[in-house]
């Protein structure tokens, strides 16, 4: 363990280093230099005057938000003598499992390449480039034959892997005993219990106002809503990321959500960001990647058929194709347990100096990946802004939903949290479902992997994602999944097969997220 001071100074050093490499650093320097021409900057009090100027002109706030953003994205540094992979994942068996999973994905990708005789990447001809550029805004109208392509994996394949995870230091006899967990996840990880969740999600309690809830008969809901909107506008005017993050825990008013999320994620869509997006776009135009077909296929299989999201099909291509080319996404592998796959230039297999990350962003899309983007299309109509918001949400939160790790927001912990909550609070239901061969996680896994996108009505989904951003945690997904089971418990108790249980939970589009979460966390007698 590091001493408090040592840890802090290490964090600061790391932060300063990162910020020095950012555009903000040069902008601040430029502003400071320009301010020298101002009459109110005096030579005798130079340092103080410039500080005062940067504060008054709003640059200090920008720096604050950047520091806050760095702190929320990057984990605090480990002990200097700890090996670097510990930042990615501290448990060796988890790292190993993730590595094996990656090998499987790559194998499947490679065999598809060989089978179809398609290279991982190739340059487009000038004519193809022109054609793609022309139909950039209507890629959805294109109908290439994708029947031979199949998604590299689907959530249920991933669940099989998680079920087989074992901690080698733990007694794993197959005989049922009080030690084993009765659910599908068999690894011991620390997850929060209800009292801890109550404490953690204290802003969601019954006495705190929430948008989309109007349970007190005496006070009209408009009263809270109007006040909440007023505060939201104030938060936006202050341009303070930390305040915005606290604010959205009680839900965003629809009309302020786009800007509040951008503020929390520190996305400002500056001209250089637009330029960066355009650069990615031209990379898409230049090269054809195999993953493009996977993305195309995924959108066609999911969002294109979705009542809420089909309208945005073209936006999804514009975001996802650029995402696959974005090498800045590679940075998140510093704290993601996954290792980006590498590909070698033809004939140079295994020679590190000829290795490139493939796809360039290191993320191989799976079945349902496009549903991470789809709901955001309701908030942002400029592709470049939509893009940045998605990238930021992905590298902060969603990558954890398909990497094997011990992180509290990682999918393994979420599964365990879900099963533990159900087992502890609805033991009869849990036992019943287990007996009829309908392990609850088999039903809820896909909801959590997709962060409920495509399952809830969009307005409800956005209220849920408000809390993901507000608490910087995905744990709310597991709580909601358990709350849904609790809500439908009576019908589930009558089910006698997996199919029947699935049917009870097939349509979540009428559910109201906040009442379910509140009742489950705060109104059940525990």
């Amino acid at each position, binding site marked *: 363990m590091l001493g408090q001071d040592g840890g802090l100074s290490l964090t600061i050093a790391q932060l300063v280093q990162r910020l020095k490499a950012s555009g903000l650093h040069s902008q601040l320097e430029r502003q400071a230099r320009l301010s020298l021409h101002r009459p109110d900057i005096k030579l005798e009090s130079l340092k103080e005057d410039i500080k005062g100027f940067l504060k008054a002109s709003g640059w200090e706030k920008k720096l604050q938000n950047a520091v806050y953003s760095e702190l929320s994205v990057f984990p605090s540094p480990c002990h200097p003598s700890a090996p670097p992979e510990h930042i990615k994942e501290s448990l060796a068996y988890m790292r190993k499992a993730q590595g094996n999973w990656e090998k499987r994905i790559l194998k499947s990708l490679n065999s598809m390449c060989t089978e179809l005789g398609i290279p991982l990447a190739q340059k487009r001809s000038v004519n193809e480039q022109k054609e793609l550029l022309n139909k950039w805004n209507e890629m959805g109208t294109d109908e290439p034959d994708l029947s031979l392509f199949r998604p590299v994996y689907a959530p249920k394949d991933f669940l099989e892997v998680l079920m087989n995870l074992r901690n080698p230091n733990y007694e794993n006899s197959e005989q049922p005993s009080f030690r084993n967990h009765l659910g599908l996840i068999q690894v011991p990880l620390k997850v929060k219990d209800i009292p801890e969740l109550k404490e953690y999600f204290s802003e969601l309690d019954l006495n705190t106002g929430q948008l989309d809830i109007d349970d007190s008969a005496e006070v009209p809901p408009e009263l809270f809503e109007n006040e909440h909107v007023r505060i939201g506008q104030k938060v936006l005017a202050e341009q303070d990321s930390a305040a915005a993050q606290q604010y959205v825990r009680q839900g965003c008013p629809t009309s302020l959500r786009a800007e509040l999320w951008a503020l929390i994620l520190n996305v400002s869509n500056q001209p250089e960001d637009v330029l960066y997006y355009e650069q990615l776009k031209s990379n898409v135009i230049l090269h054809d990647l195999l993953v493009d077909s996977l993305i195309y296929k995924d959108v066609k299989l999911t969002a294109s058929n979705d009542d809420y999201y089909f309208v*945005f099909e073209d*936006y999804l291509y514009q975001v996802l194709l650029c995402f696959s080319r974005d090498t800045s996404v590679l940075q998140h592998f510093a704290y993601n347990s996954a290792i980006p796959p590498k590909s070698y230039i033809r004939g140079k297999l295994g020679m590190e100096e000829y290795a490139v990350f493939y796809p360039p962003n290191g993320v191989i899309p799976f079945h349902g990946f496009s549903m991470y983007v789809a709901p955001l299309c309701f908030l942002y109509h400029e592709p470049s802004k939509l893009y940045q918001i998605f990238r930021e949400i992905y590298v902060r939160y969603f990558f954890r939903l398909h990497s094997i790790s011990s992180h509290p927001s990682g999918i393994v912990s979420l599964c365990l949290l879900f099963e533990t909550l159900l087992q502890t609070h609805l033991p009869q239901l849990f036992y019943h479902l287990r007996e009829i061969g309908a392990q609850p996680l088999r039903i809820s896994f896909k909801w959590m992997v997709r962060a409920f996108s495509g399952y809830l009505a969009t307005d409800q989904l956005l209220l849920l994602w408000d809390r993901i951003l507000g608490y910087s945690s995905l744990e709310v997904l597991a709580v909601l999944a358990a709350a849904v089971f609790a809500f439908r418990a009576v019908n589930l108790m009558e089910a006698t097969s997996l199919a029947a249980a699935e049917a009870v939970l097939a349509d979540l589009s009428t559910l109201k997220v906040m009442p379910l979460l509140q009742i489950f966390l705060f109104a059940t007698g525990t």
Partner: protein
Amino acid sequence: MAGKVKWVTDIEKSVLINNFEKRGWIQVSENEDWNFYWMSVQTIRNVFSVETGYRLSDDQIVNHFPNHYELTRKDLMVKNIKRYRKELEKEGSPLAEKDENGKYLYLDFVPVTFMLPADYNLFVEEFRKNPSSTWIMKPCGKAQGKGIFLINKLSQIKKWSRDSKTSSFISQSSKEAYVISLYINNPLLIGGKKFDLRLYVLVSTYRPLRCYMYKLGFCRFCTVKYTPSTSELDNMFVHLTNVAIQKHGDDYNHIHGGKWTVSNLRLYLESTRGKDVTSKLFDEIHWIIVQSLKAVAPVMNNDKHCFECYGYDIIIDDKLKPWLIEVNASPSLTSSTANDRILKYNLINDTLNIAVPNGEIPDNKWNKSPPKEALGNYEILYDEEMAQSEGPDRDLRSRSGQSIGLKGNRARDFGKPGPTTWK
């Protein structure tokens, strides 16, 4: 309690029949005594024609007004709205106020339209003012996008008129008449696609006017990207949103059918454009529907045996101004998707609950004002009686609210019920 309602229909749609059967009503043939007849517009013409001289009795109800075409034929609707505006102007009504360009401030909600061939000269005059504009030609009496085409040159219309003259002698009769309307070439695009709104409006009486708006309308999307370029004028998939047309496009999706709920539209607009402009848009949509009904109310045969459920087609432009395109007397009851089927079943269910209260044998002495609980997904859009009983001062208030552009108040003036709650 009197006997069961006897029903007839000449539209064999399951959403209708299931609703009748659910109520335990008895099917009879049209030659027997019936209480409720859901009929096509062709049949209504015969029922009320002078020759048949059919008289409906107090316990009979039909789903159309005898001269519904005053609203639902494209040419007559425009004629009635033009007349209504002139009358208001003559009265010196503040509603008929105009801006500096001579455009009505509050009544300019139908694209500039002319009848052809009757108003040909007027059209040419208008066309020459703005020769780069695109116009859309529609046959007056047809529906579902049939016979529609776009033009952007005068020569095209000359050719059309030559062709139709030589092809058949009767082309001059009113049945083959066309309307030509200025094409809204700056539609609001979502995801780069053009759409229109289909909203359902129920009228239970015209004098006094009482109408209801169905909350579950939807947007119909074109499957092909919108382009205002004139090279695509012939590609009807780009321009027409009618499902009947879009179904033949390659990209038609049979799961969602290109339909998006109005609540999706509201969520999208509030998120991307803000709450105030969104509320203003929806208020304006309610406003133009009420105004179109007020425009035809004086000429409508307010037969007490009738009610009607209209399909309103509205296009929103990129400045978020809604335009009334047309009104359908027989909105399609064909279900293109599973959700569509549920929607239409509920639409008929809620319509019947208002038109035939409690599913009992109709009595036309009834004042046709159902209790709030019976409205289902309908909400009162306008109730003339209620508006008048609230005092003459109320109408004035809503007008002044309108003229100073007060936001969000109009819908409330029309008697919009409070927000629904969860539980």
